[in-house]
């Protein structure tokens, strides 16, 4: 059976794509952010996962409001990035793993998560940039399966529901008849708000508590309603749902490889965690 080697979580911000394209990794503004990834890459070099399952949220590249699935799973042989309209470079396509996709799809529906399946799926910066940060080579050296959670249009799935979804994703991976090593990635957050008079809102105390809960009390954030999460973390901070689902997919005691928290990257409090299965 497949083995989950650990989980990685990181913020995703379009501006990171611009910084990578301009080689600004050592620039004073960007260095505290990019340096966080060095120990994580070292762990990846040693651990050598074969495939990644990436929990992320689309920002209006693949999905529009005409059809907005709450949970969706990619089932394509290859995932293409494309023009997102805000002027960041388009990254190389990422290979998929169609066997793992269909295994996930079958198992998730067995568990009554009636997901949308996507045999064609454009992936935006929330999928491509984290892969680029973890594996700077182009294209990404390992295949990946995108799993998308809606954070565009309310109502969003509750934190509790996302946690249960993550548990089902983890169980599905562990029941995959394969000898592959899988890493689970969650991208988004942490606190930030782009829209309205409250734009620029950040909540460091909450973010740090949430990051701590990833290690010691994984279900901690499930106590909050979506409304409370927006209030505490901002309209886009609610993307922490991806972290929560990723952690639920890799349960039990995990070993902290590295974590980093830095304010601000663009308008975002950026977080990074790498936790290994023991």
């Amino acid at each position, binding site marked *: 059976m497949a083995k989950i080697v650990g989980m990685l979580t990181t913020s995703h911000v379009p501006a990171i794509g611009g910084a990578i394209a301009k080689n600004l990794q050592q620039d004073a503004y960007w260095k505290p952010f990019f340096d966080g990834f060095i120990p994580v890459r070292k762990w990846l070099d040693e651990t050598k996962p074969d495939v990644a399952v990436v929990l992320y949220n689309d920002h209006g590249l693949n999905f529009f409001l005409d059809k907005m699935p709450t949970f969706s799973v990619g089932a394509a042989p290859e995932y293409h990035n494309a023009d997102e309209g805000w002027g960041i470079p388009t990254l190389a396509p990422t290979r998929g793993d169609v066997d793992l996709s269909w295994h996930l799809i079958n198992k998730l529906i067995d568990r009554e998560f009636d997901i949308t399946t996507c045999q064609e799926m454009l992936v935006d910066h929330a999928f491509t940039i984290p892969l680029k940060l973890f594996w700077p080579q182009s294209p990404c050296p390992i295949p990946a399966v995108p799993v998308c959670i809606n954070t565009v*249009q*309310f109502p969003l799935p509750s934190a509790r529901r996302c946690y249960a979804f993550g548990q089902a994703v983890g169980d599905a991976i562990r029941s995959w008849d394969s000898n592959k090593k899988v890493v689970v990635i969650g991208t988004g957050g942490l606190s930030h708000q782009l829209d309205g008079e409250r734009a620029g809102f950040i909540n460091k105390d909450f973010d740090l508590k949430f990051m701590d809960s990833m290690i010691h009390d994984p279900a901690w954030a499930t106590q909050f309603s979506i409304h409370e999460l927006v209030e505490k973390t901002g309209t886009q901070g609610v993307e922490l749902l991806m972290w929560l689902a990723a952690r639920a997919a890799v349960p039990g005691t995990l070993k902290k490889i590295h974590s980093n928290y830095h304010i601000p990257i663009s308008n975002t409090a950026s977080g990074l965690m790498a936790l290994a299965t023991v």
Partner: protein
Amino acid sequence: MMKHLFIEIKALVRMWLFECAVGASPAMLTNAANDIAPGTTFIQQEPRVSEYPPIPGTTLFDGSQARKGYALNKMCFSFNSAACREEFVRDEEAYMHKYGLNEEQAAGIRGRDVLGLIRAGGNAYYLAKFAGILGLNMQDIGALQTGMTVDEFKAKLKAYA
């Protein structure tokens, strides 16, 4: 409370009648007939977010915003394509007309009024694609919405560290 409930029911019935009048699909009519039990269940149809107190300076992009802003968001979604961005820049009025923006939305686009566009149903992610055409980044947009200069807005972000 009763008065509130009555207003809700009236609004929902009016909505349902409107959907019938504009030619709802048979599936929609079947759903309406099956899902709404006589008399008591209307209140459950209320958008869930409205059960909570509003968050100052924050508009949750719920069903009511999604309905109101559909044409505006659809136009902004088209800005994923360079050809569409160019077409908009060539003739903004014609492009807005093509997507059927209402007057409030068109005024928001003409005035580069981000808060006005949110009120008119705009979603942050799609509006950001419009901001991309104008060459504005997220700090510029943040400054516009909060009445700060860009430097003040950046300082505000940094102060959270």
